[in-house]
């Protein structure tokens, strides 16, 4: 009973094969059922997330949030969904119908597809891709595509501009994310997420805290939330790429975004916080699920926390921060961890992790030192008194410059 899910799965496959289906077909059906179960679970969770989002945001802003409908406003999301479903579905004139309708689907699908790889518990996982990590990046790329299609199809200049900004941001932040993503891969010597989580007896946050932070930051940018929420900055671009979307299409976008945030939290936790690892998770995979979701929601909270505290960044600040700070730093981390990995003995994970931690601390100190020096130079430059019109300059060209200083 420690693992009801696999139990049910085996039961079902036995049932099916019992019906005389060819084993291939059976696996196909089983896979299908698995996917269906996971997807529907996620979507339901998605609706709950809407509530969570609004409640937590309210709390941050020192207000209560929806509490009218149902106990603590739990029914509010349902109301929202029903409202969205009822709303008239307007397609802007000149919009590219096919692309217009396709983009919300892709946006949501991208979020869902990520779950295929995440090991929810020791035995419950979509599939054990040996290139799991890369899969994550790939799906991220697809979400970018969706946004572009949305921006393009709605035949609206602001939408297009918003789409461009989003894509620029996502594409540029993808680079540090992918690089930093390699750090856990180096630590576990495998790209499969299942292996990463299995290896994480000692959470990787301990071994590579800096990598974790960079991963988190870049993912925030990927989501287009928090300090980096330029795409749908209300004051400037109204609602970014999903201006023209109304009704359920907008709902899908909104839900996709929330789900994606949760997924990022889940990925972060599985990569750096040991995923389903927790006391009793080994023995009872179902408890693993609990730990997994606990960590996921914790990270989700952190994301929301950063969203409602940091002010919005300017576009050039955002890009500079990425290309001039994050990318070089992540490259350095990757290089050093790779080198150190070769040096440190893998036999004793604790020593290994501490070594890695030490490395990270050193890197942090060095970067702080560099930043402080650069900041000092900048302050001096700004503070330097710029001379007013020097007498030399005032001299007419005809007289030789040397003699006119009296």
């Amino acid at each position, binding site marked *: 009973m420690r693992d009801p899910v696999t139990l049910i799965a085996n039961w079902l496959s036995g049932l099916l094969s019992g019906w005389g289906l060819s084993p*291939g*077909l059976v696996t*196909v059906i089983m896979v299908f059922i698995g996917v269906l179960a996971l997807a529907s679970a996620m979507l339901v969770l998605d609706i709950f997330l809407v509530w969570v989002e609004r409640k937590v945001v309210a709390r941050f802003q020192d207000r209560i949030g929806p509490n009218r409908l149902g106990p603590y406003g739990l029914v509010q999301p349902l109301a929202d969904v029903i409202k969205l479903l009822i709303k008239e579905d307007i397609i802007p004139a000149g919009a*590219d119908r*096919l*692309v217009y309708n396709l983009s919300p689907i892709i946006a949501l699908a991208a979020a869902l597809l990520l779950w295929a790889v995440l090991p929810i518990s020791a035995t419950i996982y979509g599939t054990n*891709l*040996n*290139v799991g990590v*890369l*899969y994550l*990046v*790939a799906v*991220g*790329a*697809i979400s*970018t*595509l969706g946004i*572009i*299609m949305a921006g*393009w199809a709605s035949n609206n200049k602001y939408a*297009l501009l918003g789409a461009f900004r989003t*894509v620029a941001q996502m*594409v540029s932040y*993808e680079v540090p994310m992918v690089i930093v993503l390699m750090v856990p891969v180096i630590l576990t010597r495998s*790209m499969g997420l299942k292996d990463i989580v299995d290896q994480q007896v000692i959470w990787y946050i301990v071994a590579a805290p800096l990598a974790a932070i960079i991963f988190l930051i870049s993912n925030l940018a990927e989501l287009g939330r928090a300090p980096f929420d330029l795409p749908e900055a209300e004051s400037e671009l109204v609602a970014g790429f999903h201006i023209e979307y109304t009704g359920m299409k907008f709902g899908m976008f909104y839900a996709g975004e929330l789900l994606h945030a949760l997924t990022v939290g889940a990925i972060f936790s599985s990569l750096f916080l040991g995923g389903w690892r927790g006391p009793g998770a080994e023995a009872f995979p179902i408890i693993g699920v609990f730990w997994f979701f606990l960590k996921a929601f914790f990270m989700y909270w952190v994301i929301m926390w950063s969203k409602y505290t940091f002010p919005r960044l300017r576009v050039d600040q955002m890009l500079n921060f990425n290309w001039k700070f994050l990318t070089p730093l992540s490259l350095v981390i990757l290089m050093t961890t790779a080198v150190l990995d070769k040096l440190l003995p893998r036999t004793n994970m604790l020593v290994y992790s501490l070594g890695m931690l030490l490395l990270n601390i050193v890197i942090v100190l060095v970067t702080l030192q560099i930043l402080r020096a650069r900041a000092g130079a900048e302050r001096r430059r700004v503070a330097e008194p710029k001379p007013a019109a020097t007498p030399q300059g005032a001299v007419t060209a005809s007289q030789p410059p040397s003699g006119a200083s009296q």
Partner: protein
Amino acid sequence: MTALQVVFLIIAVVTLGAALMVVTTRNLVHAALWLVVTLFGVAVLYVLLDAGFLAVAQVIIYIGAIAILFIFAVMLTRRVASDNIPQTNNNWGWAALVAVVFLGGLAWVLRPWQGFSTQASELSSRADPLRELGQALVSPNAYVIPFEVASVLLLAALIGAIMVAWERK
């Protein structure tokens, strides 16, 4: 017809159809999107050919970067009201003919080739293509040189592209 073959056929049809759509649709953005579909089809083909890493790489590189680049390019170079004019130039007849002849030629050449219909051999279980690939790419006696050259090429292309597209004032 095994399931796999059915899957293969579906994917083949999807890929070829998307490819045809890429070269025939009038709206360029649609062409780009159909391209994405084709690339996706190819990625799935890789999966069928047990080259998982390549599939994901395909997705990341082609769809993630190149397709988006295409879309960017199309949007940047869009001229007003030029979407619905026929996008093929006037000697498409010849092009079609050449393509068909090419296809025929290839097929005709491949037919007598004895290895034409070899069946897929079982992958030895212990073999881990990803590891082999990783090592092949960096081990000196295999493909490190092309790998390094490719990196230099990418750097050059990077700088070149920026220089060329630089908006000279």
